[in-house]
């Protein structure tokens, strides 16, 4: 597969970020329907432990919290991609953006853990989100070190 030029790759990432945000905005209107489908599917599989209307409210709330976290993280990644495009990658602000996105992943993991009360499979989502947050934290540490090295290099006369 041919290598995509860096600038084109960044633009592709920016487009994906915008599309993800648009999808998140559309999903905000579909969450009640999604929750209803998920609950009815679960009730058909586990008829002995059916979820009622009060539980469905909690499912909808948790889904909206997850969507807000995803949308906020997407906005932060969009700002980070803009900085990448300007050549301002190894800076303190980029490190801060990565840190916040990593914490967003951990928050998503916590929401998925809460969702596990109703849907056991969401524990898989919780684990994946926590792992992604961990990967982002390691990457943040690497960028932080690179920022320090760049700063020292820039201020070498």
């Amino acid at each position, binding site marked *: 597969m041919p290598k995509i030029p860096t600038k084109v790759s960044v633009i592709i990432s920016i487009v994906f970020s915008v599309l993800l945000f648009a999808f998140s905005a559309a999903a905000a209107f579909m969450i009640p329907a999604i929750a209803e489908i998920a609950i009815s599917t679960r009730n058909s599989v586990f008829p002995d432990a059916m979820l009622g209307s009060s539980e469905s409210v909690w499912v909808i709330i948790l889904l909206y919290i997850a969507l807000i976290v995803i949308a906020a993280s997407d906005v932060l990644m969009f700002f980070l991609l803009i900085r990448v495009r300007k050549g301002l990658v190894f800076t303190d602000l980029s490190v801060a953006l990565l840190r916040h996105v990593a914490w967003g992943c951990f928050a998503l993991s916590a929401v998925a853990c809460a969702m596990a009360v109703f849907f056991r499979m969401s524990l898989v989502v919780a684990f994946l989100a926590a792992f992604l947050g961990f990967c982002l934290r390691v990457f943040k540490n690497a960028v932080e070190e690179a920022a320090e090295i760049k700063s*020292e290099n820039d*201020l*070498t*006369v």
Partner: protein
Amino acid sequence: MIVINLDVMMAKRKMSLNELSEKVGITVANLSVLKNNKAKAVRFSTLDAICSALDCRVEDILEYVGGDKQ
């Protein structure tokens, strides 16, 4: 910490930053970074060029100031 006494030597030699920049071959911006103690490292080649331009020794430019003297 290391203190840069570049402005002292420039005043003694009556040399402006622009003149020193032309003689040393470093931009005025980088010399300002050095003069204002913002630099994190200095190349030997830069020190060599500055001492040559200002006709001075390294210790005239660089001074170690210990913690108790700050």
